[in-house]
C-alpha cells in the first residue's frame, strides 16, 4: 500500500516537473511583436493587446463601448478621423473634403475615389448613407449621434448631411467608429436594414459579429465578449499597410495586464492606473490626461435636499475639496479638471484656472449658508473603474476633505445599475460620477447646462441660470471655432463660480507597451490606433 501511494505521489511530482519544463522552454517562443527567429511563421507577425473588456458587440450601429470603439476603428472607415493623439482637428478618411453651410445645418462631403471594401466591393455614397441611417434608426446606444441628422447621396460621390438644428459638432461626430461605413449589399443580405423600423427589422448583428463588412485595415476573424477578439490584416486596404498581420485583443484584468506585459506575454496593456504603472521598467509608458472627467454633484433641487440646494453650501463644497491631493491620488499624468470641458478639447480653460482649495473660505461659506454641520449621503458606483481609478478611492478622499470643512459625508457606494437609477432620476443629494465624451467636441458638454441631460440629474432645471443658458444657446449655433472657444470658456467660468457641479480630475490614460513597439500613441476616443503601430 505504501508503495502504491509513493508511486502515485512520484508520478504527480514527475508530471509537474515535466509541465514546468515544457512551460519554461515554450514561454520564450510565444509570438511577440518582433518575429526574430522563433518558431512562428515568418510572414505574419502577431500583436497581443490586453484590456479589461467593456464590449457587447462589434456591429458599428449598436456599438458604443470603449473596447468596441478600439476594435471598430480598425475594422471600419469613417468619413473623417483623427490621427495619432490629436483630437481637436478631424482629418479626411473616406471623405477627402467637406463644406459647411453658414447656419451649420448642411454639410457636404466629397468621397475618396477608388476605395474598396475588404471583400472587393467598391465603396459608394449609398453605402455611406445606408450605414449612417442604419446607426440612426436601429435606436441602439450610438443612435443619439445622428439625432436630428439625415444623410442623403445626391451623387455617387457626394454625401450631404442635413441637421434640423444648427449642429457644429458634426465633423467631430463623424469620426466615431459607430458611424463606420459598412457594405450595404452584404449587410442587407444578412438581414440588415436602415429603414425607419430598423430597430425591429434589422437582424444583421450576429452576422457582423462573425464577419466584418468594412473597408478598414483589419477584418474580424473571431469574436467573443469574454475571452478574446482576433483581427487579421486586410490585404485590400486602400491606405498604408499596417505592420501587424494578426492582432489578438484579450480580456484580462488590469492587475494581470501588468504582469503579462512585464513578462512579454502581451505587447500592450491598456487599463493600467498610474499607481500600477509606477516603477515599471523594461517597457515604454505613454502617459497623458484622459478626456474622462470625474465630478461631484450637489443637488440643486430643494425637494431632494435643502442643504445641497443652498448656493453657499455649494460654494463651501467647491472651496473645500483639496484638488491637488486628488490629482496626486490619481497618479502621474492626471490633471485637475479646470472646468467641465476636458483640457484637450476646444473651449477648455487653461491649466490653473480651475477651482482652488481654500479651507478657510470653505468654512466661512458653510457658516454663511446657515445649514450648520450637515450629514449627507454621497452616492457613487462601487463596482466599476475608469482609467484604473475606482470611485470609492476618490469618494473616500472627498469625504476626508469635507470632514475638515465641517460637512459630514456618508459614503454610499452602490453597484452601477442601482446607482444609475438615482443618478438619472436626479434623486441624489450628492453624487460622484464621471462623464466620458460622446464625441470630442465642446458641444457635448452643453449637456451640463440647466434643463439639459446631466443638468437635470443634479436638479438644475431650465431657468435656474438664464444668462448661462443664453450663452449655451449662442454657442450651439456658432460655427466659427475661435468664437466658439471664447463662448465655451465663458460658460465654464460661470459654472466654476456657481453651479451644482464641481469638476474634480481627469485621470491619466496610460498605455504600457513593449519597447519594440513604435508610434504608440494614446487617443482619447479609441484608446489606441492599432493600425498606426510600427
Amino acid at each position, binding site marked *: 500500500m505504501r508503495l502504491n501511494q509513493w508511486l502515485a505521489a512520484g508520478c504527480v511530482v514527475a508530471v509537474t516537473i515535466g509541465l514546468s519544463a515544457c512551460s519554461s522552454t515554450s514561454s520564450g517562443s510565444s509570438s511577440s511583436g518582433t518575429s526574430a527567429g522563433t518558431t512562428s511563421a515568418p510572414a505574419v507577425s502577431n500583436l497581443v493587446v490586453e484590456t479589461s473588456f467593456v464590449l457587447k458587440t462589434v456591429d458599428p450601429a449598436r456599438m458604443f463601448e470603449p473596447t468596441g470603439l478600439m476594435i471598430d476603428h480598425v475594422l471600419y472607415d469613417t468619413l473623417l478621423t483623427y490621427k495619432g493623439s490629436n483630437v481637436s482637428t478631424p482629418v479626411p478618411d473616406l471623405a477627402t473634403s467637406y463644406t459647411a453651410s453658414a447656419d451649420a445645418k448642411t454639410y457636404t462631403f466629397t468621397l475618396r475615389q477608388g476605395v474598396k471594401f475588404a471583400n472587393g466591393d467598391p465603396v459608394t455614397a449609398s453605402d455611406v448613407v445606408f450605414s449612417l441611417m442604419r446607426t440612426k434608426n436601429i435606436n441602439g446606444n450610438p443612435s443619439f449621434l445622428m439625432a436630428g441628422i439625415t444623410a442623403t447621396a445626391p451623387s455617387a460621390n457626394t454625401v450631404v448631411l442635413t441637421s434640423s438644428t444648427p449642429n457644429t459638432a458634426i465633423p467631430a461626430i463623424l469620426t466615431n467608429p459607430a458611424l463606420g461605413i459598412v457594405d450595404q449589399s452584404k449587410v442587407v443580405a444578412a438581414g440588415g436594414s436602415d429603414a425607419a423600423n430598423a430597430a425591429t427589422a434589422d437582424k444583421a448583428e450576429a452576422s457582423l459579429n462573425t464577419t466584418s463588412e468594412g473597408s478598414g485595415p483589419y477584418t474580424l476573424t473571431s469574436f467573443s465578449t469574454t475571452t478574446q477578439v482576433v483581427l487579421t490584416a486586410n490585404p485590400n486596404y486602400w491606405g498604408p499597410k499596417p505592420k501587424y498581420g494578426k492582432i489578438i485583443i484579450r480580456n484580462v484584468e488590469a492587475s494581470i495586464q*501588468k*504582469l503579462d506585459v512585464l513578462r512579454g506575454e502581451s505587447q500592450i496593456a491598456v487599463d493600467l492606473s498610474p499607481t*500600477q504603472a509606477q*516603477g515599471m521598467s523594461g517597457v515604454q509608458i505613454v502617459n497623458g490626461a484622459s478626456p474622462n472627467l470625474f465630478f461631484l454633484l450637489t443637488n440643486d433641487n430643494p425637494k431632494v435636499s435643502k442643504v445641497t440646494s443652498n448656493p453657499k453650501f455649494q460654494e463651501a463644497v467647491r472651496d473645500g475639496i483639496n484638488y491637488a491631493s486628488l490629482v496626486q*491620488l490619481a497618479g502621474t499624468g492626471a490633471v485637475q479638471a479646470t472646468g467641465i470641458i476636458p483640457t484637450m478639447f476646444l473651449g477648455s480653460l487653461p491649466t490653473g484656472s480651475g477651482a482652488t482649495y481654500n479651507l478657510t473660505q470653505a468654512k466661512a461659506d458653510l457658516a454663511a449658508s446657515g445649514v450648520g454641520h450637515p450629514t449627507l449621503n454621497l452616492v457613487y458606483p*462601487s463596482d466599476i473603474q475608469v482609467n484604473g481609478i475606482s470611485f470609492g478611492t476618490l469618494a*473616500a*478622499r472627498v469625504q476626508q476633505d469635507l470632514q475638515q470643512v465641517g460637512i459630514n459625508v456618508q*459614503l454610499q457606494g452602490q*453597484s452601477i445599475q442601482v446607482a444609475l437609477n438615482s443618478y438619472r432620476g436626479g434623486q441624489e443629494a450628492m453624487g460622484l460620477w464621471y462623464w466620458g465624451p460622446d464625441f470630442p467636441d465642446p458641444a457635448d458638454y452643453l449637456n451640463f447646462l440647466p434643463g439639459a441631460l446631466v443638468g437635470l440629474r443634479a436638479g438644475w432645471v431650465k431657468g435656474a441660470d438664464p444668462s448661462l443658458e443664453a450663452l449655451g444657446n449662442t454657442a450651439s449655433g456658432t460655427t466659427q471655432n475661435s468664437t466658439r472657444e471664447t463662448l465655451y470658456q465663458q460658460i465654464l467660468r460661470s459654472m466654476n463660480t456657481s453651479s451644482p457641479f464641481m469638476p474634480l480630475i481627469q485621470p491619466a490614460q496610460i498605455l504600457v507597451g513593449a519597447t519594440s513597439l513604435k508610434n504608440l500613441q494614446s487617443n482619447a476616443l479609441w484608446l489606441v490606433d492599432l493600425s498606426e503601430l510600427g
Partner: protein
Amino acid sequence: MTVSARAPLDPLGTADAVTRRRRLRPVTPVPWRRPLALTGLAVIGAWVVVAIFAPLIAPDNPLAQKFTILAGPSAANWFGTDELGRDVFSRVLFGARITLPLAVILIVSAMIIGAVLGGIAGFFGGWVDNVIMRLADLVFAFPGIILALAIAAALGPQLRNAVIAVVFVSWPSYARLVRSLVLSARSAQYVVASRLLGSSGLRVLFVDIRPNAAGPVLVLAALDVGNAVLLLSGLSFLGLGAQPPTAEWGAMVAEGAQNFNDWWVGLFPGLAILTVVLAFNFIGDSLRDMLDPRTARAVRI
C-alpha cells in the same frame, strides 16, 4: 461553503454520540492532551484581545490617508501602506473588529434558526417535516457562494446584506443535523418516559432533547465559523460586502489584487483570515474528536 454529507451518513458521528451517552455533560476541553485545540484557542484569544483593544494597540487610525501611497513594510508601517496611504497594520488589526463579531453573530443566527426549524421538523414530522426539509434541500442545491452572491447583489452591496446572505445559506446544515438528532432521540427511553409523565412536545424538545443535541450542534458551529468567515470575506472580495473605507480583510485582499507588485497590501489581510479560520478549525476538529467515541477510540489504540 459548507461541505456536509447528507444526513444518513452522519460523518461527525454525532448521532451515535447521542445514543451512546444519554445525558451528556458539557465537555470541558483537556488542553494539555490536545496541542491543536490549545493553539486554536490561543490564536482566537489573541485575535479577541486585538479586536477589543484595537484602538489602543493600533499605531494609526485605519482610515487616515496620511502616508506615502503603496510604501513597502518599514519601521513606520510594519505592513506597509495601501493605495490611499493608509497603514495596513492598523487596518488589519481593526479588521478583527468586523470579522470576529460578525462571524459569531452569523453562526449563532444560523444555528438558532436552523436548530429551531430542524427540531420542529424532526419532532412533529409529517408535512411540517416535509416542507422544512424541502426548503433546506432547495437552499443546499445552490452552492453557497452563488446564492449568497445573488442575494447580496439583490439587496445591495453592504456588509449587513452579506451577513444576511451567508445566514440564509448556512442554516440548512443545522436544521438537518438537529432533525436527525431529534429523530433518533425521539424514540429514546428517556423521551418516551418524559412524554408518559405528561410533558408537552415543546417541553420535551427544550428540556430533554436540547442538552443532548447541544454538543453536536456546537461542534458543527465551531467547524462552521471558519466557513462563515471565508464566505463573508469572499463576498467582500467580490465587492458585495464591506464597502470603502471600512477596513475588512476580504475587501483589503481585493485591493491587493489591484496591485500585485505591492504584495503586502493583499498578503497580510489574507494571512489574518487564514489564521482566524485555521484556529477555529483546530478548535472544531478537536471538539469533534472529543465527542466522537469511535474516532477517539481509534486514536488511542
